[in-house]
């Protein structure tokens, strides 16, 4: 087979940066938006890179898809700057409150409409772990799905994927086109050039809504979901170790330890360092956070 009609759809999802602590919202189920940093799911970027490698080698067409509100345009622009050909952002308020089954219905519709040769995405989400939707959607359109893939070889009628097995074993599985591949590891995502980044800023992103899929509203979002959140228990915070008075000490010394050592609530840590060290320290923190390079 010639690969010139190869069409790869890459699903890009966002995750919350796992480094700063997340805050649970007070009422209902979820994470508070405030102070949350969102980043593209690292494994999805690996999948995108794998697709772009195929584009470079074989001239495949790469379409990237993000499901979510307008802020996901940034992720799509990143994909453009890396070399994606077409970007689609699918979002509709009717999608809110959906579960895996409801979300699968819309993704399956998109697969049918775009009918790609290959569907790439990450195997797991960095913050929430497994996401069953891509595999379920593939199944819904009778597409084979290779999970936990670490590399892929194309042959005449399909692909061979090397994937992780139990206890470090490796397994090669074969599947015909069209096929979905969920990457666990793979090529390191490329770094876009400045020109590509500039160009991506004006690239046009297609916006799709539920109506574009021809999917009735009752099959999507909360109304289409089998699961509803009945109750949500906030996690019990893990204790930060505090020095408790040593029971072996005599009572009067325990009292002194409480009265002198308790938490000093209204004081912060004061460091006295030179201006150069301050600048250096701030610079290090900012670069660790990825705010300067």
């Amino acid at each position, binding site marked *: 087979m010639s690969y010139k009609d190869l069409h790869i759809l890459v699903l890009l999802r966002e995750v919350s940066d796992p480094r700063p602590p997340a*805050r*649970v*919202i*007070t*009422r209902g189920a979820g994470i*508070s938006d*405030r102070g949350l940093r969102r980043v593209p799911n690292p494994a999805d970027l690996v999948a995108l890179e794998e697709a772009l490698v195929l584009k470079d080698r074989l001239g495949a067409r790469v379409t990237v898809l993000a499901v979510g509100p307008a802020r996901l345009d940034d992720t799509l622009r990143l994909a453009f700057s890396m070399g994606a050909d077409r970007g689609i952002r699918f979002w509709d308020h009717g999608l809110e409150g959906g579960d895996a089954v409801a979300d699968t219905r819309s993704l399956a519709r998109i697969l049918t409409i775009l009918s790609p040769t290959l569907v790439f995405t990450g195997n797991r989400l960095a913050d929430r772990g497994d996401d069953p939707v891509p595999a379920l959607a593939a199944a819904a359109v009778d597409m084979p799905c290779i999970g936990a893939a670490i590399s892929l070889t194309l042959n005449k009628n399909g692909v061979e994927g090397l994937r992780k097995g139990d206890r470090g074993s490796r397994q090669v599985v074969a599947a015909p086109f069209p096929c979905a591949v969920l990457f666990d590891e793979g090529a390191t995502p490329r770094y876009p050039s400045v020109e590509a980044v500039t160009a991506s800023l004006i690239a046009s992103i297609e916006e799709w809504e539920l109506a574009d899929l021809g999917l009735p509203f009752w099959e999507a979002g909360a109304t289409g979901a089998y699961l509803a959140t009945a109750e949500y*228990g*906030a996690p*019990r*915070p*893990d*204790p*930060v*170790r*505090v*020095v*408790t*008075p040593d*029971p072996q000490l*005599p*009572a*009067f010394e*325990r*009292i002194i330890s*409480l*009265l*002198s*050592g*308790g*938490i*000093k*609530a*209204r004081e912060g840590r004061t460091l006295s360092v030179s201006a150069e060290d301050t600048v250096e320290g701030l610079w290090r923190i900012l670069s660790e956070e990825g705010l300067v390079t």
Partner: protein
Amino acid sequence: MMFPYLFSPVKLGTVEVKNRISFQPHLTNLAVDNLPSERQMYYWGERAKGGAGLIITEELTVHPTDMAYEKLIDVYHKEVIPGFKKITDYVHQFDAHIFAQLNHNGQQGDGSNSRLPVWAPSPIPDVLFRETPKEMEPEDIEEVARYFAKSAIHVREGGFDGVEIQFGHSSLARQFLSPLTNFRSDEFGGSLENRMRAPLKFIAAVRKAVGNDFTLGIRMCADEMIPGGLDLGQVQEICARFEASGLIDFMDLSIATFYNLYLVEGSMHTPLGYTIPLAAGVREKIKLPVFCTGRINDPVMAEKVLAAGQADMIGMCRALICDPFMPKKALEGRLDDIRYCVADNQGCIGRIGLNKSIGCIQNPAVGREKEWGEGTLEKAAVKKKVMIVGGGPGGMWAAKMAGRRGHKVTLYDRNETLGGQVLTAMKGAGRDEFGVIARNEKEQVSKAGAQVKLGVEVTPELVQTEKPDVVIVATGSRPKEHPVGGADGPAVCNVWQVLNGEVELGANVCLIDYDGHQRATATAEFLANQGKTVHMITSSLFIGAELGPTQDLYLSRQRLLQKGVTFTPDIAVMEIAGEAGAKTIKGFNVYSNQWAEWGPYDTVVLAMGQKVNDDLYMSLKGKVPELYRIGDSVAPRKVDMAIWEGHRVGREI
């Protein structure tokens, strides 16, 4: 939201409390005829209205042998139910939950109210009440368990959402648990298992009475902090066993006993959040929700404790007595408007300990919520021009209240900042937090629309130029002289001059204490902190005679002694003589009448009490349409009365 942990719901047994703030059990002395009263309904209701998720009532006595305080509610009579219903209905309308606390004080009481012997595990008298109790027979233990059960039924029928049993600092149950008070050799004493037997009987009886669908918790003493008593290690074990019984739903905590009551209700000399390590220690060992109480007086600290996983529920007591609306203000992010408790202890514990109804130096409405609570302030019928002279706590309160009622208020002070005598008092050693009183009101004065004029000395001429309808004189007081020979001599000064740094002092100082309160002790410590040798002479039985009710006595004396301050009590000082550097003091023992002489000292400091600053009031009398005077300028008292009178006059003009 600023405080996501503090305002997240928590499940206590069958109840979901809307936030993590619990208004903790404490005596109010508001009950009438040993029945729940209307004042209690409004008192607890005000805190529910202010946003606390949970209210736990004061201890309700479960048995006739426990009448440690005259104004306890006898919960074992079913006559309490109608009153309970009124209280619980009132609280529930604010989306808050209310639990009742059941207690038997055991030996921590006496029989003078009940005319019955007090019951205890062993005939060991309590350190405060000093009455030898009757050693409980096994049938007495059964009877108390039955009464606990009966009382719990009344609680449930009264509409409460849950019940807490007091196993903490003052309780029969703790006396059974502690090797300090339990010397029994039968099945209720000796091993930990035996010592837990009676308390477990109480819990089991209550659980059986209320059923499994009702929240039940205990308030455990986290550390008795006394040699031979329970320590955190043992309490962790006890808590784990109580949890394993499967009978309780939450673990509230307190600390200490009557041996060290100053730890139960830490004053401003105690660090904020001083019990957090204990709560964290208990929480490490059990999965039940754990409460932490003790000088957590602001939402920021509460949030930190919750976020750090050191407790699941924050107990606030004085913080909400002082500002019932702190939770609401925190929720709305109005931290500037919170009136922070300073743990002065004068109005709450200081009054309760003397069998008076509960109060608060900073909140005159405490115990009078029906008349003075939130929403009771009405706009003035006639808008008046009000001139308030003196920006101390009394003046600030008068300005705030009058301003809120729509009067045109101007507050004058001759100093460059508001606060009055508070600004001097806060300079005493360890009294810095007293200054928060001024911080709490300053903003409120301008927010109430009052104009503030600082650095202005108000004279009768200025009043005549301004032509106000009302003048409120709040000019305060100043230290009074010692009426004995030599008190006006060289190198003699008063505590104010010392605290304000107005005088040069020598290295060897004698402080004559006719005050008995912080004015003397905090100044002596202030001097000792500067490395001076300080000797204190008082006519009282001991130094710090007025510090007992506020729980400041023990630690104040401890610090003074550790800093080398020496005391001579029982002496009436009659003469101060000599030059600077060689001051001598002559006086006689008020009991033996024997004369003696002390010295030489470099400097003599007088803590004599205050006299009024009433010159302006006297010269304005009869010359302005409405003239009032409030606070120390009427008669020098403490800050609570200045605020009380400022509040009242602001409400009434």
